[in-house]
Every structure is written in C-alpha cells, then in structure tokens.
C-alpha cells in the first residue's frame, strides 16, 4: 500500500513567498495491526541462537614506515668503586678487595651461596639434562613423514638506491653461508638511467636493512663470485667488459681491474674461479664470443683466449656469444659454454690447437641459455635453462636433450641443481615464480611453484646445504627462502633411482638417434642409387628438381589420357542409355563409382609423386 499525500496549488501561486504557519499534527494514515495476518506465520520453537563466550576482538593492521636500525655495542668499564678510589691503581684496589674479604658479612654470605652453587654444579654433572634422545632415529623418522613440500620467505633485501636495478647475479659466501653477494646492473640495452648507481652489495642475511659492504666498481657488475678457497676475495665481471677483483679486507674499491684493451667488448655474463695451485685463476665469458682466462695477480691481460667459432677457425665475426659458463672442479679439463644462439658448446682446455678446443655442440634450445650446470651427483648429465623450457642433457647424446619440461607461459631466466638431492632443481621465471622440480616425484609439473614477487626473477642460487636459496628480481629485491626439509634431505635409494632414470632416458635418446641416422643413411643411399640409374639413361645426370618436373609432367600426361578415356566412355554410355533406358542406370552408376574410386587413387598417387622419396618408385614403372 502506497502512502501518498496529495496537495494542489494554483499555477498563479507558484513562486510566491512561503508563509509558514503552525498547525497541530494531523494523522494521515494509521495502519492498525491485523491479527488475521498472524495466521500466515508460526512461532519458531526452538530458536537456534549462537552465543560465544569469548572476548570480542577486532583485527587491525598497522604498517609503520621503514625503520633503519643499526646494531651497536656498549663498552663496559669498571665501576662501582668508591669515589675516593682510583680503579686504575692496582695497589689500592687490591687493598680494598682484601678489606672486603675480611668482612664477616661477606664471609657468611659466601658460605651460604657457595653451598647452593656446589649443589647445582653437582646436579649438572650428575645428568646431562639437555641430552638429545632419539638422535640417530631422527634421520629415519624424517623420511617417513608425508609433509607437503613448501618454501617460505625468510628475509627480503631491497636495493637501497632510488633507481632500482636488476639483481643479476648472487653468490653465497663459501664458509658459513652468512653472507650473500649480489651484483646489480641494468641489462636492458642502453636503458640504464643516468643516475643509476654502479654499486653492488654484500648482505649479511641477518640484517636486511643495510648491506654489510658496498662494492664500487667502475661499471655495474653483471656477475660476482666468491673465491671458494679464500673467502675475502671476490671477482666481478662488469657491464663494460672489464673484470675486477675485490678484497673485502681492503675496502670498497676494486683491488685491481683488467685493462680495457684486453678485456671483453660486451658485458661479461659469467666468471668462474678455476681449480689451480695458486687459487688465483679465473675464466670469463661474454657475448662478444670470447672466453678469456685470467690470473688475478696480473690483470693486464688474459693468459689465454678462446673464440667460440663453431667453424673452428677462430673467426670473431662468426663467433657465438656466450651467456653462461660451466666448470666442475672434478673435471678440470672440460668446460661448457652456453651461448646466445641456443647452443651449448663443450670445450676441452687441454687441447693443443684452438680448433680442437671446441669438442662438440648440443643444440635444442631456441633462445639464449641463461643457466648451465652439471648435476653435482651425476656430472655426465647437465641442466640448461633457456627460452621457455629447462632441459636435462646427457653428455653422450648430442642431438637432443634426454628430458625436458613443457613449454611454460613465461621465459625461464635462471636455474640450478640442489646440491644435496640429485633429483631436485630450481628454476625462476619471468613472471616472478620460483619452481622447484623433483624429477623422481613428478616430471610434468614442478613439485612446488611459488610466486615470489610480481616482477621477473632474474637469478637464483642455492646454498651448499640445499636448505636456503636466494633469488634476485628485476627491481633489485633479493628474497631469501627456506625450503621444507623434505626437499633438502636425501631420500633412500634416491641416487640409484635418479641414475636409473637418466640411463633410461639416455638409452631412449640413443635409440632415437640411431633410428634417425639409419633413415638418413637410407635416404642418402637411395639418392645415390637413383643417380646411378639415371646415369644409364640418355639424359645423363639430372638434378632433383629436374627429376621432379619430369615426374610431374609424365603423371599429368597419364591423368589427361585417363580423363579423355573416361569422357569418351561416358559419352558412349549416354548414347547407350538413351537407347536402353532407365534400367541401365544402375550399371551406369556403378561404373561411375568405380571410376570415382579410380579418380581417388589417381589423386592420392599425385601426393605420392610430390614426395621425393616416392618419385623414385615412379621412375621404375
């Protein structure tokens, strides 16, 4: 029911000044309760009411502004000495002490508390209350647990500069893993803003507010590595192609830098310490196509150089740009280079001639190979991360990888094996996700996929204990993550199972490779044979195209002949039909059909002819 109040006003009265007047209230509508309506409702009995006997709480979130804190220590100085005593004066203090010892109260107190102290000491010696029970059984218990693999962020280290740069490379401190060296640079071609800082930092993982040390190179560093033998020395490859090394005891400036004339011409993407007696050898790779060997004591020029020319002529123009390097200390004579073109080049250091240095190449990727690493447990197999996939290769199979992930939606930018589990490896993608793969558990999908941040993740490094990993993003944020215990403890039989898996896949690839080779051989032998046959014919040697053209011509001639024959037959049949009438139609149709089939055969034959394999057969007819 709509409650409406209607009033009328004369048109001429519009716009007049309002004259208000008081009047008593008028009741316009009074809706009385209608008891009959109650019949439509029933009383609810019992009523369900929820009551909570707890404190009422509300959730609030507060975020404070970033607070910079510093750790400082206080130096204790002796105090408490009476005012007239000089604590530095030995004699006076000794005298004071002797005086106190003679005090009766002192002696009584000491006797009392000494008794207490003795009691506690004896208690300590009686049993070790902090003894670890079930320590040996711990290892087995962990394996049985069905915990979900997980990883959580422990700390986030942000680039303190205003202008954010990409964290292009990370390196853990070789002893203790308490420090993380991060190299910052902008890899976008000529897009680095003018006021971008060149500094790279060493972070203490306990303190994400301020980096422990700053490294100030001449040009932003693209890669950074600690010397595994001497943890004070770091070497960095910079954007302008120079190599520099730092001694953390000596300060933020590089201890020495390579000369520009002999350095790389492009950013140095990877630098690795070599195993040598002096512990001062490094080698570096860059997209200018060279791999250079340096001794850090003499940075004026490299002591060896290799040009990545696949034609083995040492021609720099043909060279492939190197984007990643791989070196395993257990195999000091071999090393591998991942190139921009998607090839992995395996090289031998000890080869006599530069041509022999490049042993073989592995192809299969479509884009630059950002990461290349041998499996720490099975050095014959290595992982490459490039374009949208990660692939596992076996050294013996050069044509393709033995295992590979599916093509993802985003580019994969870096990856590494877990140092404790042979079946686990980590990859990071351009959309900011970290994937943990366990090939024994699942091959199609990552075992764990975590979104770490919104921008692209450009680098990842796992600590030697396999538990912590750091990943660097495009905006310079380095995230420290801890993975669950299941992903960093060696499962039983894991090594055997992984080795079996690799062997199985390698065998499969070998068989496929052998098949391919066979097919190619067959093709080659057939083409040779057909060329011999043609030699007998009057035409002499013809090229493939000519052969194909001839086959086509002959085929079309046959087709035309057939068509004409059919047409003539049809015309004849029509004449017969006109004469014989409808009852002949059936036969006619049948004939048509068979002719139709014949046509189909001819058509499929034409497909065959197009195929170069099969035209040879035609020749023999």
């Amino acid at each position, binding site marked *: 029911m709509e409650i409406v109040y209607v009033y009328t006003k004369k048109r001429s009265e519009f716009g007049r000044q309002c004259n208000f007047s008081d009047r008593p209230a008028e009741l316009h509508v009074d809706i009385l309760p209608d008891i009959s309506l109650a019949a439509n409702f029933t009383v609810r009995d019992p009523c369900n009411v929820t009551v909570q006997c707890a404190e009422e709480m509300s959730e609030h979130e507060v975020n404070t502004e970033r607070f910079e804190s510093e750790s400082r220590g206080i130096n*204790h*100085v*002796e*105090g*408490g*000495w*009476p005012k007239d005593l000089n604590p530095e004066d030995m004699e006076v203090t000794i005298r*004071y*002490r002797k005086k*106190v*010892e*003679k005090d*009766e*109260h*002192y*002696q009584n*107190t*000491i*006797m*009392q*508390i*000494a*008794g*207490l*102290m*003795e009691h*506690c*000491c*004896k208690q*300590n*010696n009686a049993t070790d209350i*902090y003894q670890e029970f079930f320590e040996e059984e711990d290892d087995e218990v962990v394996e049985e647990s069905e915990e979900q693999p997980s990883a959580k962020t422990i700390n986030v280290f942000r680039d303190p500069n205003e202008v954010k740069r990409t964290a292009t490379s990370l390196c853990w401190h070789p002893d203790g893993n308490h420090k993380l060296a991060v190299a910052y640079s902008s890899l976008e071609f000529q897009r680095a803003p003018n006021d971008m800082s060149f500094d790279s930092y060493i972070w203490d993982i306990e303190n994400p507010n301020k980096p422990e040390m700053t490294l100030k190179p001449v040009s932003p560093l693209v890669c950074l590595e600690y010397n595994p033998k001497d943890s004070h020395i770091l070497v960095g490859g910079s954007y302008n192609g120079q190599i520099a090394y730092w001694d953390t005891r000596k300060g933020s400036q590089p201890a020495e830098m390579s000369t520009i004339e002999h350095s790389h011409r492009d950013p140095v993407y990877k630098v690795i310490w070599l195993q040598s007696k002096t512990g001062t050898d490094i080698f570096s790779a860059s997209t200018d196509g060279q791999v250079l060997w340096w001794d850090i004591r003499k940075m004026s020029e490299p002591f060896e150089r290799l040009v990545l020319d696949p034609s083995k002529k040492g021609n720099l123009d043909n060279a492939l740009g190197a984007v990643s390097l791989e070196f395993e200390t257990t195999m000091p004579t071999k090393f591998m280079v991942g190139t921009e073109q998607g090839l992995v080049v395996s090289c031998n250091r000890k080869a006599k001639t530069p041509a022999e240095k490049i042993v073989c190449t592995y192809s299969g990727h479509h884009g630059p190979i950002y990461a290349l690493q041998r499996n720490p447990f099975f050095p014959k197999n290595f992982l490459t991360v490039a374009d949208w996939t990660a692939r596992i290769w076996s050294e013996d199979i050069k044509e393709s990888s033995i295992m590979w992930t599916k093509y993802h939606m985003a580019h994969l930018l870096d990856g590494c094996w877990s140092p404790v589990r042979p079946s686990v490896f980590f990859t990071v993608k351009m959309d900011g996700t970290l994937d943990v793969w366990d090939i024994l558990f699942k091959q199609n999908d990552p075992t764990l996929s975590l979104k770490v941040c919104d921008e692209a993740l450009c680098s990842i490094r796992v600590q030697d204990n396999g538990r912590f990993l750091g990943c660097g993003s495009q905006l310079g944020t380095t995230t420290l993550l801890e993975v669950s215990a299941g992903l960093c403890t060696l499962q039983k039989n894991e090594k055997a199972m992984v080795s079996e898996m690799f062997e199985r896949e390698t065998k499969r690839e070998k068989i496929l490779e052998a098949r391919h080779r066979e097919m190619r051989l067959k093709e080659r032998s057939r083409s040779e044979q057909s060329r011999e046959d043609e030699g007998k014919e009057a035409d002499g040697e013809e090229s493939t195209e000519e052969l194909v053209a001839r086959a086509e011509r002959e085929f079309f001639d046959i087709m035309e002949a057939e068509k004409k024959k059919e047409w003539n037959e049809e015309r004849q049949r029509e004449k017969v039909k006109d004469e014989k009438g409808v009852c002949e139609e059936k036969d006619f149709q049948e004939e048509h059909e068979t002719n139709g089939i014949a046509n189909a055969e001819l058509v499929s034959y034409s497909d065959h002819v197009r195929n170069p394999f099969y035209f040879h057969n035609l020749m023999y007819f």
Partner: protein
Amino acid sequence: MTAEVEETIKRIQSQKGVQGIIIVNAEGIPIKSTLDNSSTVQYAGNVHQLLMKARGMVRDIDPQNDLTFLRVRSKKNEIMIAPGVKTI
C-alpha cells in the same frame, strides 16, 4: 674464616666442567675472580642487571617469593648465578 671461604671457592673450582668463578659485591665490584680481568668486568657488568630483572620478575609474580638461583644456558656453556642474601 677466610681460609674456609678460600677452601670453598677452591672446591667449586675443582668441580668438573667449571670454567671460572667470579664473586661480585653489591656495588658491582668483582672481589675475587679466577678469569682474566676483561672477562671479569664483562660478566660483572652484565650479571648485575640480569639479576635485578630476574629477581624483580619473581617477586612481581609472587611477592613472597624470592630468587634463589639463576642459570643461563647458552649454546657453548652455562652461566650459573647465585644472588647474595640481602639482610635488612
């Protein structure tokens, strides 16, 4: 009397696992110590505050209660602190 005190201290020192003993008076002055001076000063300075805090906590929870002993267990060792009895 002093001989007894000395003897008691020696006895505690000879217990297995005891690295050193420091006796500190109410003002915080280390009276006797078997460790070197710098460590003594460090321990003496820190222990006083800790003791005050611990005692305060115990009495806060129950005013009739009092702190008799304090053990600080760390990764490498254990510091055992016995507060002196305060007589009015």
